[in-house]
């Protein structure tokens, strides 16, 4: 993969930068050029919180080629602000103890080694809040 492809996603993957529509307030992650709700084209850049609620999850036991060394691993959909959800891995967790509705923190982690050159790709992964597993 050409490194620019990874570099241009840094604001989202490293800092959770989202875009809030200046007209109707709908928030988009990643940012868009036009709001799909009111078709306005001006946005305010905001940062999403590094936490959220687990909506649904699965445990990947048959991974794609670039994740073969990680399986089994959990991936979930997490609501970070009302109405805005993201997909990412859930790590440092007992796979049997995951539950929809649980609170999660997001952390900056290594996601995958990408392409033939093995470029290290970083981004956000979810972890259980400290008191959950104790």
């Amino acid at each position, binding site marked *: 993969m050409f490194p620019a492809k990874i570099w241009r996603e840094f604001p989202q993957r490293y800092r959770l930068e989202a875009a809030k529509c200046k007209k109707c307030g709908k928030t988009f992650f*990643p940012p868009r050029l036009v709001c799909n709700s009111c078709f306005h084209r001006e946005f305010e850049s905001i940062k999403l919180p590094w936490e959220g609620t687990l909506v649904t999850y*699965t*445990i*990947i036991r*048959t*991974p794609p*080629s670039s994740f073969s060394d990680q399986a089994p691993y959990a991936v979930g959909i997490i609501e970070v602000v009302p109405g805005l959800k993201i*997909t990412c891995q859930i790590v440092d967790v007992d796979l049997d103890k995951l539950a929809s509705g649980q609170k999660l923190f997001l952390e900056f982690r290594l996601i995958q080694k990408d392409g033939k050159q093995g470029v290290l790709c970083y981004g956000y992964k979810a972890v259980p809040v400290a008191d959950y597993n104790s």
Partner: protein
Amino acid sequence: MREVAVIGIGMTKWGECWKSSLRDLFVEAALKAMDDAGIAQIDSLYVGCMSGGLFNGQEHIGPLMADYLGVCPVPAVRVESACASGGVAFRQAYMEVACGMSDIVLAGGVEKMTDVDGSEATYALGTAADQEYESFHGITFPGLYALIARVYMQKYGITSQDMAAVPVKNHAHGLKNPNAQFQRAITIEEVLHSSMVADPLHLLDCSPITDGAAAVILCPLEKAKSLSQKRPVKILGSAHATDSIALHDRKQIEFFASAAIASKKAFAQAKIGPESVNLVEVHDCFSIAEICALESMGFFAPGQAGKAAGQGITALGGKLPVNVSGGLKSKGHPVGATGIAQIIELVEQLRNEAGQRQVQNAKIGLAQNMGGTAASSVVHILEAC
């Protein structure tokens, strides 16, 4: 707009076709469809194919197939809409005939998936999701449908056992289809004891990796009798709708809005409702997909399709036979060909030529083909003439 009919159908045997190449598969199906219609020449050609590039290193499939079918210089184009590629190719052909630009159009689909290993195939199929915000995080297609399944099961109190009745039913149907990849019955226990692919989906909840092709011939209804001896089957409705590429951007994860909107438009064009349909072919890429697609199109109220297979409602002989071809699960899922094979099943049924799996008094059939996690859905309604 002109009324349009299907006058020819043809497909290869589906499965692991080691001896056949991408072009061999397509041309075999296309020739069968032309022979079935009794025609020697076509005006135009559409090829549904999701990823000749990733599976076979081959793009520019339109002219490749026109060349090997011996029909150059007719216009030929590959249509890509992930697993809905075949259904969308059929709709392109329908529109070209309906608007009067062409009289005889071949709509086909093909995928040759076994030239790469399992993890490469999983990667290639994953490109139908949002590459940067879903696949980047290691989610697979079984994984995405597992996310849907968990939401549905929690919301409606459906168990893995209830869901397993879907592939059990579809395998029972596929047993009667000579072109199916798996012509064998399976049991609920086998589904529940098959390996977990992405919790809560077991291996036998998932459609397989398949090589195969399918093709149909379309022409104006008014010319069908003069062009072909075959009993024409009329296209009553055709519609296509899209939704967010990422599953996490949906308000309601278990509801396929693209299928709901496409079916609503197709029903409106056909001037009928779900109650007039005698059989349905839906996109059962995973057990949960059949359940959600049926509810989204209004065949069942929310939460009611989850137990329909177990209750026999959707089996051959039931009130609404669903996937009597065997569905994607048993017939196989060569992604680009799937939408065309659904049309072929409807045509065989409406011609009363489906043999052991014939739905009695079948007059109207509906096919729903979707791409990704229903980011696109295409729906067709066909009627016996």
